[in-house]
């Protein structure tokens, strides 16, 4: 289970264990507390974390869910979608943004992206039909989508807006946190997220009491009381144990985000002359869950970095509309030229709290050498 030293890259893509070690004694403490309590499902740690997380996001309510995918699925399912309905999202996201729509029976409808890799609001109206029920903008890499424009369009057409904030805890737009803009928002606490559980985890935030109440029941088999099942549903509860571990980390999140941002800005300065770097737009506060550049000759650069000991990854080489799973939706590569072009240029570089300037310099040196030679 432990890798040999020679396999270990100089700059790994993530360093979970190292970051965990900072709070390990605190984690172990609450871990034992939960174990001693004998309360492993939906106890006071979960309730407390939900309150603290809602307050952090500037939302009225938060509901703990087993993972970010379930969170999206439950909210969309709560809208009562059928196979006649359509939901709009972006084609360059993680699968869950589209699969959560498809699994409700509704049809995912994609709109292309802007140069900042988020959904292009100017293209949304053309995708709206009488069947459209909701828009799911994705705050990709922790960069907020254009929420003012999206909410404006949704308001005009009476559509539900679900923010896919899976990658965007701690981000904000015009001083307002992501996850507090839409009718509801979903967060992931997967291990590679800025605030993470030690396994899977997710959250739903909302200001709407009715949505909150419905999600509390939906995540727990449709049970409104121990012996009363209001509707058939799933088991998608966030574990008490993970909630307790998340509570320990939440107070550190802003400092970790700050460190990510400083490292991202330093990368921008080091790399700007070689590749497209993720500069913050006006009003944006990006949490840089992923540090994604856009590069010419991307595959060559990636191979060059990997052979130099830098774990650079592509998130993701194939847009959702071109996946085998999307075949029946009938899209072609020509439908979303921006997303397809971006898929050939994007490259994610290692970025996390604890990444050293020396490691960053190593990355920059390799990038510079690749384009100079």
């Amino acid at each position: 289970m432990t890798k040999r030293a020679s396999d270990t890259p100089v700059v790994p893509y993530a360093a979970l264990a190292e970051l965990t070690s900072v709070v390990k004694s605190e984690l172990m403490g609450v871990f034992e507390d939960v174990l001693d309590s004998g309360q492993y499902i939906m106890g006071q740690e979960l309730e407390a974390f939900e309150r603290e997380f809602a307050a952090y996001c500037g939302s009225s309510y938060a509901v703990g869910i087993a993972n970010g995918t379930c969170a999206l699925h439950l909210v969309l399912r709560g809208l009562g979608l059928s196979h006649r309905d359509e939901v709009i999202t972006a084609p360059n996201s993680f699968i869950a943004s589209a699969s959560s729509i498809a699994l409700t029976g509704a049809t995912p409808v994609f709109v292309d992206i802007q140069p900042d890799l988020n959904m292009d609001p100017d293209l949304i109206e053309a995708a709206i039909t009488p069947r459209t029920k909701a828009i799911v903008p994705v705050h990709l890499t922790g960069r907020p989508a254009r929420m003012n424009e999206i909410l404006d369009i949704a308001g005009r057409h009476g559509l539900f807006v679900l923010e896919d904030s899976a990658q965007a805890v701690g981000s904000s737009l015009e001083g307002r946190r992501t996850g507090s803009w839409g009718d509801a928002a979903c967060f992931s606490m997967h291990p590679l997220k800025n605030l993470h559980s030690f396994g899977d985890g997710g959250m739903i935030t909302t200001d709407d009491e009715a949505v909150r109440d419905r999600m509390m029941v939906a995540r727990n088999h449709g049970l409104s009381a121990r012996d009363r099942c209001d509707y058939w549903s799933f088991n998608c509860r966030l574990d008490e144990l993970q909630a307790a571990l998340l509570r320990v980390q939440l107070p550190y999140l802003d400092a970790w985000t700050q460190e990510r941002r400083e490292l991202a800005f330093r990368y921008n300065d080091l790399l700007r002359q070689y590749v497209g770097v993720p500069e913050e737009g006006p009003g944006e506060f990006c949490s840089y869950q992923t540090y994604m550049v856009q590069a010419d000759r991307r595959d060559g650069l990636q191979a060059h970095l990997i052979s130099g000991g830098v774990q650079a990854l592509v998130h993701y080489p194939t847009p959702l509309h071109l996946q085998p799973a999307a075949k029946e939706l009938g899209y072609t590569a020509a439908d979303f030229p921006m997303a397809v072009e971006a898929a050939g240029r994007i490259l994610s570089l290692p970025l996390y709290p604890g990444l050293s300037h020396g490691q960053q310099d190593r990355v920059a040196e390799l990038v510079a050498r690749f384009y100079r030679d």
Partner: protein
Amino acid sequence: MRVPYAYLSEQFADVEPYIDDLRGLVASGEFTIGPYVEAFERKFADHIGVKHAIGTNTGTDALILALKAIGAGPGDEVITVPNTFIATVGAIVAAGATPVFVDSDERYQIDVSLIAAAITPRTRAIVPVHWAGCPSDIESVLEIADRHGIAVVEDACPSVGAQVNGRSVGTVGRVNGFSMHPLKPLNVWGDGGIVVTDDDEAAKFLQLYRNHGLSDRNHIDLWGVNARLQPVQAIVASRQLDVVDEIADVRIRNARRLDQGLRDLKEYVKIPERPSGYREVYQLYQVGVARRDELVSYLEAQRIEAKVHYPIPLHLQKAAMSLGYKRGDFPVCERQANEIITLPAHQHITTEQIDHVIGAIHSFYGANL
């Protein structure tokens, strides 16, 4: 004398060995499937005697995945019982199929004599529930299913360790689900489940579907879900698997003592038949009693924590309204809903506590021991 229903803080009084394993997990950073989950899956498959075991986030997910794997979907009917935990039916509905109920027998299991009459050309599967850790008559269920060319999906959620004629439950149906909820025989520190099968094709689908349909990091073969077992829970489950049979032995001993102690109350207490060749592991120790609600209050007043699983059969739940059932459709199950009581019989109950419970029930009915 207090007789508590809960036992988790006693079961996990010594967490040091787990903490050691967890340190290894944290150092490995393998929080998504990975070696700990895979090692547990192998160990569990070998333990119950099945080719493939796939860890899931919950027992509910295990059932949903099992039904998806056998191809149950819209237009299909799936036969099960109305006296189960909601998740059995929730899973059928989640798969898109329509639940069809058949009544229970006097062991609180599916009444196999009623199954054939419930089968229609649309029936896709039978989902017997090994209720309360006691096996249903799975051999008869399989025979009926084979005769009609439909699949069996065992809801073995409450029943790790239960056996029929030496064969573990969860190894008979085509694809079957287990739960590892804290109150199950094999339990973890939160939610967890396992779906098992001997069928290689089904196993391949299950692996894909539980992890977003990803055939590798960048390729999505089908729209799937995230229903992965957490490595933390796999570590707990792996250690528990080493002692699950010993724990079951203690529960079986406790159940026998309760059976014997209550046998003379024939007029008031109905003890289900205990068929030979069946290994019942008593996730719940259930009997039928007269004046049930009064007895529950009486025991509670004496700090004996008795429960009812469950007072409302599923066909009478609000969620079932669209299925069109009414009171009277399943008379045995409906009667049992008013009779059943669950008594504490877990591995941390002492014989003194059991005898105390037996004594309290005798005095409630005004009987002498």
